[in-house]
């Protein structure tokens, strides 16, 4: 049977669709299309874009509540007007990413290092379960320890635990200025080592990315007057022969990082895979990726805690799966063939499905294990 597409604009309509359907998949702007499973049959695809709008924004409370279909671009614009921002650096805003899709995909951007990732800014969530009932967790205050932390649980739930219908996020004042330092290290290992050394310094580093073979990008955020002095302290940490260039505060510097949160570098690639790593795994991973040749490009992001791997050919995803399995690294394809959505180490799947099943007792949402 062809899949049914539903376009609700209210919670009641979402609930109605849930009750009327056997199998459900919520979608936003489909900017992380690899996570979708519209290849599965008999699905009711709930297009959440019509359920949008800011529910509440009071800058003095440091929080914003919005419906799931609200675009990140709209949210960012409203916050910017008050000098605030989403410190986890949401990705693919220019492509139309929605709030609900951003939470469900669990992806934070390269400039998330200052205060934490998406999970760290989740205060409250409202979702619709398979029976069409409203379930809420968290609260509309910046500090709260009541009940289980559903807002965090739904980060990375990939539309498989329920439909996220509304969320409240913590927001912060936007740092007055940013400056970027680019370092050409002597090797990838040297770049990682320098990166780790810099992150242990008490400097407000908002992004640290490594582009193989050996380029290091460091972004500082803070009062404008303080940036040059802090950049000097970064260069003072470098071995003398390593050249450092600066991108001074301004529109070009802002645009540079904005494009990185849009993955502009991966535009010409067929697949984009996000891999969770630790600093000591970076060298092994990048060495193994060289076996895939020019068909693959990798960026080590978020202080070497995430590897973004772009693949020219969809077929290369099988080879990548193999590499990640051997290194016991877990990955997820945000773009690519849906037959190979989750790559490498899949030990997270069984416990995730156990928890998923407890929330989705009528089994209307897809399993992680499928």
């Amino acid at each position, binding site marked *: 049977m062809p899949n049914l597409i539903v376009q609700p604009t209210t919670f009641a309509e979402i609930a109605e669709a849930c009750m009327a359907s056997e199998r459900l998949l919520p979608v936003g702007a489909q900017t992380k299309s690899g996570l979708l499973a519209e290849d599965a049959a008999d699905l009711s695809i709930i297009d959440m874009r019509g359920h949008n709008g800011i529910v509440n924004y009071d800058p*003095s409370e440091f929080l914003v509540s919005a419906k799931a279909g609200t675009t990140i671009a709209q949210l960012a614009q409203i916050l910017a007007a008050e*000098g605030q921002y989403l410190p986890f650096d949401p990705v693919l805003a220019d492509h139309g990413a929605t709030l609900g899709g951003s939470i469900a995909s*669990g992806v934070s951007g390269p400039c998330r290092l200052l*205060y934490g990732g998406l*999970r*760290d800014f989740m205060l409250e969530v409202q979702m619709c*379960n398979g029976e069409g*009932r*409203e*379930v*809420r*967790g968290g*609260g*509309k*205050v*910046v*500090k*709260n*320890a*009541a*009940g*289980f*932390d*559903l*807002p*965090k*649980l*739904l*980060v990375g*739930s990939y539309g498989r635990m329920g439909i996220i219908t509304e969320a409240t996020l913590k927001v912060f*004042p936007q740092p*007055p200025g940013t400056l970027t330092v680019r370092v050409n290290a002597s090797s990838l290992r040297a770049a990682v080592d320098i990166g*780790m050394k810099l992150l*242990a*310094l*008490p*400097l*407000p580093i908002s992004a640290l990315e490594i582009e193989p073979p050996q380029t290091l990008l460091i972004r500082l955020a*803070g*009062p404008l007057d*303080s940036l040059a002095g802090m950049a000097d302290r970064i260069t003072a940490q470098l071995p003398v022969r390593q050249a450092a260039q600066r991108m001074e505060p301004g529109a070009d510097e802002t645009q540079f990082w904005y494009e990185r949160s849009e993955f502009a570098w991966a535009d010409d690639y067929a697949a984009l895979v*996000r891999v*969770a*790593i*630790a*600093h000591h795994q970076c060298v092994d991973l990048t060495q193994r990726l060289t076996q895939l040749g020019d068909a693959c490009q990798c960026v080590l992001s978020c*202080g070497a*805690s*995430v590897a973004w791997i772009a693949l020219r050919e969809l077929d290369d995803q099988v080879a990548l799966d193999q590499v990640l399995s051997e290194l016991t690294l877990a990955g997820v394809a945000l773009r690519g063939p849906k037959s190979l959505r*989750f790559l490498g180490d899949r*030990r*997270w*799947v069984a*416990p*995730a499905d*156990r*928890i998923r099943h*407890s*929330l989705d007792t009528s089994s209307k949402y897809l399993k*992680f294990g499928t």
Partner: protein
Amino acid sequence: MSLDFATFMDRLRELLPGDDRLLEQPSALTAFQSDGLTAFAVHPRAIAIPATSQDVIEIVKLCHEFNVPFVARGSGTSLSGGSLPHADGIVIALNRLDRILRIDLPGRIAVVQPGVINSKLTQAVASSGLHYAPDPSSQQVCTIGGNVAFNSGGAHCLKYGMTSNHVLAMKMVLADGSVIDVGTEGGEGIGPDLCGLMVGSEGLLGIAIEVTVKLMPKPESFHTVLAGYKSLTTAGEAVARIIASGLLPAALEIMDVLSMRSASAAVGAKYPSNVEAVLIVELDGTAEAVAAEKIKLSELIAASGASEVWVARDADERATIWKGRKSVFSAVGRLSPDFIVQDGVVPRGKLGHALEEIQRLSREANIAVANVFHAGDGNLHPLIMFDGREEGALIRAEHLAAKIVQLCIDLGGSITGEHGVGMEKRQFLSGMFSEDSIQAMHCLRRACDPLEIANRGKMFPSAEAPALSLYGAHPLETAGIASRM
């Protein structure tokens, strides 16, 4: 004792040989009968003291096999009765699992056992310039395992978050004895954030046996200001002014006159005279950033109507300010034989209204209430003072506490900012969450603990253990099982 329970105890004795790993004598049980919420006391059947992770796993498996409730416990500093024992169950005391297993300085992480004391971790990495950021007032004694279970906060949550923002990964034994790994070292996971679910689950899902935490660079520069105000309202308005300016202080704390008096009596803390409230503001960061921000802060405070402003000139003066602030909970003991600490949260903009209401309720009940709070987070800590030896005094104090919790719910806030629901606030959970939401939480719990043996009777306003009513004697008391101290 049922035959089953006798068999359970025999098996437990085999598992924990020696005379100091399974305590059953009444004097030992008394030592574990209460936690930081001393108003309640329950004797457990036994105290199990594991020495290894494997011991913990085996004990939990045994509890599951025999359907025996267990309460995992660290230092027992919970202020919500989170580690109050179950009368038909055992306490699993995790204090001997106190090893720091691995420190990865380049990766800025530490892997610790649950019994590690919060401040010991920071001490262990001090020479590297890193620290473990969450700093609950009890950090000298509380354990990381307890912090994880109750998602502890502290004075620096506004900027740095709570415990859950600093826990990257965990090895957990779920209440059915299965062992799972959640989270990732780098903090960027694949799949749903199970680590986020486990932190703050109040011991209802299982026990963390290894915790991987984030270590952060210690800020190189601090600027700590203590400003005195003629009223709590003006101090509250100063907070609003600072927040609106775009500054992000590491801490924004307010103490009222009773709190100041307590801290002075207990640790000799000094405060400006003739003020009704003090505001403590702390900026941190690089020397460059703090230098720029402190000018802005001093202008804001000068314009806020402060009658006196003290700036900490060195690390000692900063430490003195914080010593006074962190001593308040224990210091109130100098002014009153007993007290109840509340932990509600209100939207920051409603702080002034909440404080006025608390003062009105305090006058109405004729019960003194000291106020100390994390103003930046809207997290109140009213300390309700009473003398437990007076007939009915506890009940009256609890009535007042209940009204304050309800006030926080009515103002759109939370019943707890950092102490957890535990035993104390379970009947208020339904004031925050609908039946469907609480049902979903029940389902999550049963996925990990089908028999509901882990910290049974806590957090949920459940029928299984009758709700602890704040309006009269607890059923356990009537039955002679529990007593109030």
